């Protein structure tokens, strides 16, 4: 790295002027707009300072919507983790012959539009759809149920759409994992479960964390799935923000709500991060991992 800096041809020219356009692009379209939204939430139509938008947000309806989105994001992330870990574990440890094919089929949905993925569920969850037909044929239910436009559909499809985001980071960590560490653990008398719990899981923690937040953060702001599969009956954070900005055109209220939910998302993320370090990793492993040996 050091040598790069010394020998680098372009650092000799010192024409770092050309590096600036990308930075300007990012600052102008990402950071300045966020400040704009913040300012908008404190300024009323006659451009006076006001807190009225935040006061208006301080009621049960908005509180419930925030909670609902948090619940959706957390549940989706946890269920995705429970399904994704064994799959990633198996793909990285046991599969060798069909690995590339299986990975290929895992990546395709990841690179396909979210809309296509959720539309695929319409013909299954519909009142005359496959789920109802199969359940009726099996004699489990006598009448077709409305599965579309229920919270169940929203949860199911969220898990479906976000699961590749969980598998890929865990897989890429597990694949690079040093097998000798697991062998050492088994040789030193740990059972397979103990090895898994004390060696494999803590070592794959960075992947779990990345995957968890790759699911949790977008799922919190999700609005396409609730609108299309929840029938827009239950509002979530994303759908309410969209409503304020594009339907009711009350951008002040929308701006305030955007900032409020962003702050709550940041707090939730910090808490989750803390939980990962404190609770999920066993204390002994933590000591070994984070405290240098003397």
């Amino acid at each position, binding site marked *: 790295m050091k040598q790069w800096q010394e020998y680098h041809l372009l650092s000799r020219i010192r024409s770092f002027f050309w590096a600036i*356009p990308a930075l300007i692009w990012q600052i102008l379209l990402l950071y300045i707009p966020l400040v704009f939204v913040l300012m908008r939430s404190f300024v009323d139509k006659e451009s006076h300072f006001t807190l009225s938008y935040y006061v208006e947000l301080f009621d049960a309806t908005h509180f419930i919507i925030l909670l609902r989105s948090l619940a959706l994001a957390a549940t989706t992330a946890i269920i995705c983790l429970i399904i994704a870990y064994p799959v990633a574990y198996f793909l990285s440890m046991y599969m060798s012959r069909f690995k590339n094919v299986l*990975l290929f089929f895992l990546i395709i949905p990841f690179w396909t539009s979210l809309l296509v993925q959720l539309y695929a569920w319409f013909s299954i969850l519909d009142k005359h759809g496959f789920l109802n037909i199969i359940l009726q044929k099996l004699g489990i239910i006598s009448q077709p149920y409305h599965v579309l436009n229920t919270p169940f559909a929203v949860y199911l499809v969220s898990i479906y759409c976000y699961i590749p985001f969980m598998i890929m980071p865990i897989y*890429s960590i597990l694949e690079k994992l040093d097998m000798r560490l697991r062998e050492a653990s088994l040789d030193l008398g740990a059972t397979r479960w103990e090895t898994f719990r004390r060696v494999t899981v803590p070592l794959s923690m960075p992947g779990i964390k990345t995957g968890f937040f790759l699911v949790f953060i977008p799922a919190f702001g999700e*609005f396409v799935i609730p609108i*299309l599969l929840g029938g827009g009956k239950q509002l979530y954070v994303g759908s309410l923000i969209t409503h304020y900005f594009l339907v009711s055109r009350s951008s002040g209220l929308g701006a305030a709500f955007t900032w409020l939910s962003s702050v709550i998302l940041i707090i939730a993320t910090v808490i989750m991060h803390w939980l990962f370090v404190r609770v999920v990793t066993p204390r002994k492993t933590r000591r070994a991992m984070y405290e240098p040996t003397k």
Partner: protein
Amino acid sequence: MNQQNKTCSYIFPCLVAAFYMFLYVPIIILIISSFNASAYSYEWRGFSLTWYHQLWESVEVWEALRNSCIVATASVVLSLVLGLMFVVFAAGTWLDHLLLTFYGSLAAPEIVLAVGLLSFFTFFSVPLGLTTLIAGHTLIGLGYVVPLLHSRFHELSYVLTEASLDLGADYRTTFFRVILPLLSPALMASALLTFILSFDDFIISFFCTGGTTQTLPLYFFSVIRSGASPIINALSSVFLLVSSIVVLLFSSLKIRNMDFF
């Protein structure tokens, strides 16, 4: 021990098979229904290409496809050129520490970015349309391109650059004949990634077009909302085909340490 191994070797494959079924049954049903003569996916009335034919004839779809391609291509070119310029010219200067700036668009939920862009454009009364769409997609693209190119660029050996300079090449020649070819796999990968991100993006497009311009995902959304038409089955299959081609191209690049997919 042996017993345990045996159970593991049965349970895991079943689990993975079940998972892949969960992942692919909806997609397979979707593809099959796109060839169904009936408008309802639960009754099979024989093989037909009606929906593909209607898709081909539809003016709206072609218009949307054209817009999607323009926006995706423009944002690929912009984010590659700007990103490469940043990575190369910032190397070794204090600007290199500002790499973190580019992670912002990855960390924030997309809807927050979209709201920011919309308020920004309306404040300066920029007319919403293709231009604002390209600006928004380039913002997303830079968030992926810059970290990727940055890590690849700093893995390159400086020895090659030095050798090239010692052997009499000037800076420009060294850049075009040595650095650019070495970076080309990473450039291709980021181009594909940005293209598909832009091509599939819905949320930014939904906020940044103001209903004036139609892209394929926007068209898709409006059709689903107004009661799904079987044309959408055919369109979905086309989307799936495009993404499998892109994934095939991408995996043929064989890039080490690619954590982006």
